[in-house]
């Protein structure tokens, strides 16, 4: 079972330390997005990287559209990895949607986690009455169309998702490099699950200390969302980053590393 999970989620382990740092990628990419960040921590921590089933070099045959129709399915990936490696006191670093995946996993098995570090988190992307998430439903539908347009070249080469194409593996490889996913259908479902998720009610159950890394001018997770999270998560710390956009771990790795390190060294409120 344990080796199956490690293969299924393409788990890679680096580092010399014993405290595990688990990096969870967001929607639209895979574990390589952490490549500018994790080396800074390899001296002191055990670095665990992985791809969610359906992303990167994970085992696509393990994709189950019922399981991954819900962020809980992704949280189950995280917990499976923790169980397979017998990880405890994990420092969970999640980008974007993975922040909420970490929230779900930490509520389900609190003993596995020590801290949650969230980069550009949002508990809900779509505006809802007084809540401002930044998007309307229509925006999300248009995103799905944009994605389809960008997958069109590939989608016509590749057989539909349910008939796996084994004869032309080079296509798969090329697509992994281009889009971090070989399967437009999976990518679409991930987009839907991500942008239609609502995890606001889970926030009150989070007991772990957490760091909210709020970027400047981030369309995906605007300031209001960062403030909302800070108010809902009683054991959280909010930092406003100079980095703009939604991917500070790629656009501003130094600032990202500095803030994470500063947080890990500070005496924030214990769990």
């Amino acid at each position, binding site marked *: 079972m344990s080796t199956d999970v490690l293969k299924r989620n393409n788990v890679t382990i680096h580092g010399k330390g014993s405290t595990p740092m688990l990096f969870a990628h*967001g*929607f*639209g*990419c895979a574990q*390589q*997005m952490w*490549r500018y960040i994790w080396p800074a921590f390899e001296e002191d921590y055990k670095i665990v990287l992985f791809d969610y089933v359906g992303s990167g070099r994970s085992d696509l045959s393990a994709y*189950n559209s*019922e*399981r991954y*129709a*819900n962020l*809980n*399915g992704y949280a*189950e990936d995280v917990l499976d990895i923790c169980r397979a490696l017998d990880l405890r006191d994990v420092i969970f670093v999640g980008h*974007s949607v993975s922040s909420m995946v970490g929230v*779900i996993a930490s*509520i*389900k098995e609190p003993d596995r986690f020590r801290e949650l570090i969230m980069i550009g988190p949002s508990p809900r992307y779509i505006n809802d009455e007084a809540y401002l998430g930044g*998007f309307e439903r229509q*925006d*999300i539908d*248009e*995103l799905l*169309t*944009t*994605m*389809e*347009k*960008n997958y*069109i*070249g590939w*989608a*016509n080469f590749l057989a*539909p998702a*349910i*008939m796996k194409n084994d004869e032309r593996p080079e296509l798969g490889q090329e697509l992994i*490099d*281009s*889009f*971090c996913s070989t399967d437009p259908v999976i990518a679409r479902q991930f987009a839907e699950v991500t942008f239609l998720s609502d995890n606001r*009610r*889970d926030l009150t*159950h989070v007991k772990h200390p957490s760091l909210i890394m709020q970027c400047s*001018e*981030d*369309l*995906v997770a605007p300031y209001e969302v960062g403030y909302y999270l800070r108010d809902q998560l009683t054991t959280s710390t909010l930092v406003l980053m100079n*980095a*703009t*956009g*939604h*991917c500070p771990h*790629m*656009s*501003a790795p130094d600032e990202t590393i500095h803030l994470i390190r500063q947080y890990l060294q500070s005496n924030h409120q214990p769990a």
Partner: protein
Amino acid sequence: MAFDDTGKINFVNAFLCEALGYTAEELIGQSFERILTISSRLFYQTHFFPLLRLNGKVSEIFLMLRSKTAESIPFMINGHREVIGGQVLNLCACFTVWERQKYENELLESKKILQKALEENVLLNSLKSDLEKNQQQLDQQISMLIQRSHEYVQLNKVLSHDLQEPIRKIGIYADILHHSEKISTDTQLKAYTQRIFETVERLRELTNCLQQFVSVESHEEEFATVQLDTLLAEAIQEATRVTDFTDFSVEAAGLPQIEGRASQIGMLFRELIKNAIENRNPTSRLHIRIGAAIVEENSYHASKNKYRYTDHVKLEVKDNGMGFEKRYSTYVTGLFNKLNSESKGMGMGLALCRQIVSNHYGTLSIQAVEGSGCTVLVMLPVKQPENL
């Protein structure tokens, strides 16, 4: 056009300016995202920029750009990174693709229809064979369950009547013996009859416990909406009465209402509290903390590869009692298994709890630390499966 890693536009040519209706001065120094539609900004943040940054180039990316008059214009973009004058710039060649977009839309549309039909067909075929297989299995299981259910009714009757009668008789005759003149003077024989009494009493308790266990299996009570906090309050009183122990406190917060069988859920709470009382630490005052959270759990337990996430209440019943060694976590929920030889209980409480929880399609697990208490984790569906 060119922009830096913060997204700031550094250069833009006349073609792009004209296509968007801006002057170069209006665009330089502005964020690239400003000339994208909202959905294209999302795609830019989640795909375009990460890919450009990681691979050093992107090719044939489709994005909708926003003109000065807020019109959406379809563009195809190729980009790569280059160091110019000591600064890393992202250079992009942008083409309008009005014509191509039309073809693509048609292509996508027909592809979608085709794929949907194909998926449905493949899905239907696999569902059909699954269904037949499952139906066969289900039928076997249902007939076994009906059989089992009859047996439970019989067993219940045996335990509540047929077995009680011989136990009662043994008691009566032992009593006659005990009080007969012949043995009233023989202390040895009197000690034997006393042992018979005690054994009969224990047999009666065991039978009663078994009957309770079996009766939980008979599904006479219907599911209804139950208030967990009300049931807990009643269970605390009941447990206090049965154990004649009052020196403890219970702290519970946020217990919701769920669908369940009220008498069974009440019994579950009562047994959990009784268990904590019986295994309390004599050196510190017993404190039981009950926490509740709603989480989504897969409602399929036995079927592999089936997922349906539904709301469950996660109850955590934590005490500061004696606890036990980790390796006994499964043992303690077995019927008549008990670790604490000091307690008066029959080793029945947690087995009953597990039975009740599985009757509600939930799960129960126990974690304990020897000397510092145990935590019972109960996961119960908020709505019972057939009522979803």
